[in-house]
């Protein structure tokens, strides 16, 4: 309660009591001097003194009564206030004891948090190690694949070289086949002409046969004339008649032989024609030519297809090799990014250090509450711990976070960090 309120209450009570007392003295003054003093046999001075004393005592008690009536407290509210303050002091002590007890429990609380953080460090380290090991396994597979691709590419190159050689050989073969086909056509035509000439010559023999047949007929006619002339000569021509008869018989046999020769020549010509007819037929030569050309074309297609296939294989291998190299590069980056765990671990260790400091500070606060009346108690402020924590930071990001937390905004630290890579 402030003094002004107390003074105001005392003034009000004093005025009320003063008015009442003054009124009482005014009303009872004559009665007091006329009746009370003579009855008690007191002089006027003694009577007035006793009366004043009585009035003062009465005024005091009246003030208490008025105070109770107005403020429900016989000391203008001070008694209630004191009781209230005593109650608040008890509550404060109780709360301080509770806070002290809780502050002592901060370490236990922080032990739990530290335990969790340590678990995070251990688990992330294990996870990062596992990731690295798995990446290592993946890299071994990629390396094997890369080696396989290299060896396959080498084999493919060899195959391509061999196939190009074979294709060149095939081209030579095709050219030879073309030449052979042309030769075959020329030879077939030449054969056809030669056979036709042979057949023609064979058939031309029939003219000689006809000539012989004509000579034979003339000989027969001559023999007949000779026989007639021999008969006309009589006995002298008998011998000549025999000769003429023999000549006629010979002529008949010669005629018969000529017929057989002619038949033989016809048979030989027919046989040659029939023997070479299929072979010399133009359609057969064309079929043979078509077949050879078809074979040549298929050989050509085969070579081209093989070339396309090896080119495609080379393209696939180049693609796989390129992917393999990119995977290898990604593997390196992934391996490097595992360093985040080490960075995080150090940041968490910094937080654990801050929790340790908070432990000590909490214990100190609890002791301060217990020893509140010790004027020599030394309490190290949190600000000093914050400064020490700041000086132990190793990363500029930690310093930035620190400044941001203190300023409540985006403030970058003023630390003197160098470049990420530096050569001395």
């Amino acid at each position, binding site marked *: 309660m402030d003094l002004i309120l107390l003074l105001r209450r005392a003034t009000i009570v004093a005025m009320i009591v003063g008015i009442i007392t003054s009124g009482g003295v005014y009303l009872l003054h004559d009665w007091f001097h006329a009746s009370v003093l003579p009855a008690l046999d007191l002089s006027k001075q003694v009577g007035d003194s006793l009366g004043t004393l009585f009035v003062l005592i009465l005024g005091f008690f009246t003030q208490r009564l008025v105070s109770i009536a107005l403020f429900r407290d016989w000391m203008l509210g001070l008694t209630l206030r004191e009781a209230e303050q005593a109650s608040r002091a008890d509550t404060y002590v109780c709360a301080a004891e509770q806070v002290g007890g809780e502050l002592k429990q901060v370490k236990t609380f922080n032990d739990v948090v530290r335990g969790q953080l340590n678990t995070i460090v251990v688990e992330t380290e294990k996870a990062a190690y596992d990731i690295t090991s798995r990446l290592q396994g993946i890299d071994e597979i990629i390396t094997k694949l890369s080696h396989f691709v290299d060896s396959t590419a080498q084999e493919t190159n060899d195959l391509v070289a061999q196939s190009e050689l074979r294709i060149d050989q095939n081209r030579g073969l095709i050219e030879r086949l073309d030449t052979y086909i042309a030769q075959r056509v020329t030879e077939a035509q030449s054969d056809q002409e030669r056979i036709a000439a042979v057949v023609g010559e064979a058939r031309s023999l029939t003219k000689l046969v006809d000539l012989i047949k004509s000579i034979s007929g003339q000989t027969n006619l001559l023999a007949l004339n000779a026989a007639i002339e021999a008969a006309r000569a009589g006995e002298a021509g008998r011998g000549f008649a025999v000769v003429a008869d023999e000549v006629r018989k010979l002529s008949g046999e010669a005629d018969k032989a000529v017929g057989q020769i002619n038949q033989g020549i016809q048979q030989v010509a027919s046989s040659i024609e029939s023997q070479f007819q299929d072979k010399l037929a133009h359609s057969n030569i064309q079929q043979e030519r078509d077949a050879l050309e078809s074979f040549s074309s298929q050989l050509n297609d085969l070579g081209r297809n093989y070339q396309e296939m090896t080119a495609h294989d080379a393209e696939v291998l180049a693609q796989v090799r390129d992917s393999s190299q990119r995977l290898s590069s990604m593997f390196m980056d992934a391996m490097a990014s595992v360093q985040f*765990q080490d*960075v995080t671990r150090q940041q968490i260790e910094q937080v654990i250090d801050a929790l340790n400091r908070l432990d000590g500070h909490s214990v100190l606060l609890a002791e301060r509450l217990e020893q509140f009346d010790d004027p020599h108690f030394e309490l190290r402020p949190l600000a000093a711990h914050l400064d020490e924590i700041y000086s132990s930071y190793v990363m500029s990001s930690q310093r930035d976070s620190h400044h941001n937390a203190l300023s409540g905004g985006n403030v970058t630290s003023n630390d003197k960090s160098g470049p990420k890579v*530096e*050569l001395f």
Partner: protein
Amino acid sequence: MLVDDSATILLSISNILGKAGYGVEKAANANEGLNKFKSGVKVDLLITDLNMPGMNGIEFIKEVRKLPTYKFMPILFLTTESQQSKRLEAKAAGASGWLVKPATADELLGTIKLVLR
């Protein structure tokens, strides 16, 4: 030689270096690394962390520089520490370069090539 107290860093960085064709000698702390140097291990480059339990990176390279064989060997720091003051301290102790974690494979291999040149 690669010196770091994190097993994950040892594994990942040695993999990157191995993939790039470098042979890697590993040590889990400064004392282990120093013992290997004292036993005469042949290495062309030392890559070390700065903040390690026990002997820190700067104390470590000071000890390494005391060994005549490794007086001129390139030393590269691979650390989360970024402050200029620490770099100057490392430079005075005989370091050749500084690389802040996390470093990419290109940054790491590029820096190694430069310090080995």
